[in-house]
């Protein structure tokens, strides 16, 4: 399976990505995840202000194949949700790393970034799954 992995992003084993800018992490699911899930039909909007712990449940996502959980790559508070997904969940398929972002998290513990994979590490991790 050919997948796109962007440099400069951080990745989890559960196939979420995080783009860190200052104290904010923008979070979405990777190209690997969206290809595996198939056509996305619904993203459950999480409550703004919710406190998340690293690698714990963030929200649910549904595709024509299955309903799955998305986990937060980092601890913090949900600062924003991409409400464009309400009308156009397919943005996650079309543009998983940019327009298809899911939430922004106000990072509470930047030292947790070390628990994430960089692009090179994730690329070999995803290749190993095939």
């Amino acid at each position, binding site marked *: *399976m050919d997948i796109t992995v962007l440099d400069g992003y951080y990745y989890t084993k559960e196939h979420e990505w995080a783009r860190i800018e200052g104290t904010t992490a923008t979070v979405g699911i990777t190209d690997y995840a969206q290809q*595996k899930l198939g*056509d996305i*039909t619904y993203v459950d909007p999480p409550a703004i202000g919710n406190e998340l712990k690293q690698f714990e449940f963030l929200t649910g996502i*549904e595709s024509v194949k*299955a309903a799955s959980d998305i986990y937060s790559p980092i601890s913090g508070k949900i600062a924003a949700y991409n409400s464009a997904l309400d009308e156009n*969940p*397919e943005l996650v398929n079309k543009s998983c790393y940019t327009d298809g972002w899911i939430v922004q998290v106000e990072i509470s513990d930047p030292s947790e970034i070390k628990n994430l994979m960089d692009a090179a590490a994730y690329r070999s991790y995803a290749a190993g799954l*095939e």
Partner: protein
Amino acid sequence: MKNIYEKSVPGRRGVDPGTAKKETEKKLADRYRRISDNGLPELSELDVIRHYIRLSQLNFSVDTHFYPLGSCTMKYNPKVNEALSSLPGFAGTHPFMAYLDVDAVQGSLELIYSLSELLAEITGMKGVTTQPYAGAHGELTGILLMAAYHGTKGNRKKYVIVPDEAHGTNPASAAMGGFSVISIPVDRDGGMDVNIFREKMSDEVAGVMLTLPNTLGLFPRNISEIVKIAKKHDALLYNDGANLNAILGKARPGDIGFDIVHMNLHKTFATPHGGGGPGAGVVAVSEKLVDFLPVPIVTKTKGGAYTLDFKVKRSIGRVASFFGNFAVLVRAYAYIMMLGREGLTDASEKAVLNANYIRVKLKKYYDAPFDRNCMHECVFSARRQVQKYGVHAIDIAKALIERGIHPPTIYFPLVVDEALMIEPTETESKETLDEFIRAMVEIAETAEKNPGMLKNAPENTPVSRPDETKAARELKLTCNR
């Protein structure tokens, strides 16, 4: 095909109710009179008959086609069961009769009593409730029994352990019962990973829910060890009996060490389901849980009469009105009595034989994630077809529809990538299995040579390939008139 509203013609009638008597309208208060259009389509009797007969002809069912939908056990439902459940003494009885005049419904009560005894014998259990309406309802009942058991003992329990291959209803039922779910992955052998299980096990675990054989169609070879570890922590063992049809007369959940088992009578004991009729999720329990069963229970007096017992010491109460889906109980009882011990064992053996026949014949063409003997169903993966030709499990499913075969279950179990889960059941002939195998081989070859052909299938069916994404994204649940 037009829907019934599109066929409507203003003023057309199937029935002439005659003209209203003079001044009838005046006798009715305004609030009882319909002012607006009642919204019903206007058709003749013949229009209505043709419409519904035509719809029934479009039906795809086990009575018309091979239906190897994995995990659903779409075996043939013998018609004698229908005849017996329609006997006026059963079909015409109101369940309240059991409360008002127990003498008048001795036959129905005897059936519930005898069926309960048979199911306890088949599963190796001590007590039975026939109330739950379907499998997931049986699961919830089981979880409530689990909670009541631990509550009475003063056990502080928080978790239920479920392997990651389980039916989604298992974690959902545990969560509805107030427990948090711990998910354990399967190991390379296809059973629950016993090392991770041992690590996660603690005195706070209320129970372990296992499907036997599991949803990969495999019998876990480490089951005794799992039971031993669970018992050490006073965790109850729950058997999701969705796949009981594979082990009838061969292994009894009670003997293995399970405390609770739900049976899908509609699957294992051949009653119509899946749009063809309601289910029955009868629950059987071990000695420890008998005192918690839902009431009423049908019992037999010393004089041999059947009566209702409401005095179960610590009953969790009622989980359904009356006795569950009684007509399904009648069909299941008829099925068990017709087959007997030898017949039920034979049914399981043939179900396993048929699944293995398909597994062996197809393993050259599709990847088998666990290459060992299976039980009543076999699970393949379309990974090879996806990676090499861009053909997915769903394309294979659609191509089967084109060939007059109901697709297997796809994309479940979730632990198998691009899963195709095939359950032929014991009621299919070798000729039907061979026809299915030929279709699957031909589809594998088409995927290789001409994958584009599979992308638009089916093309020659009353409804061609629906846009599943559009249907999920743009919900429209009303009918335009």
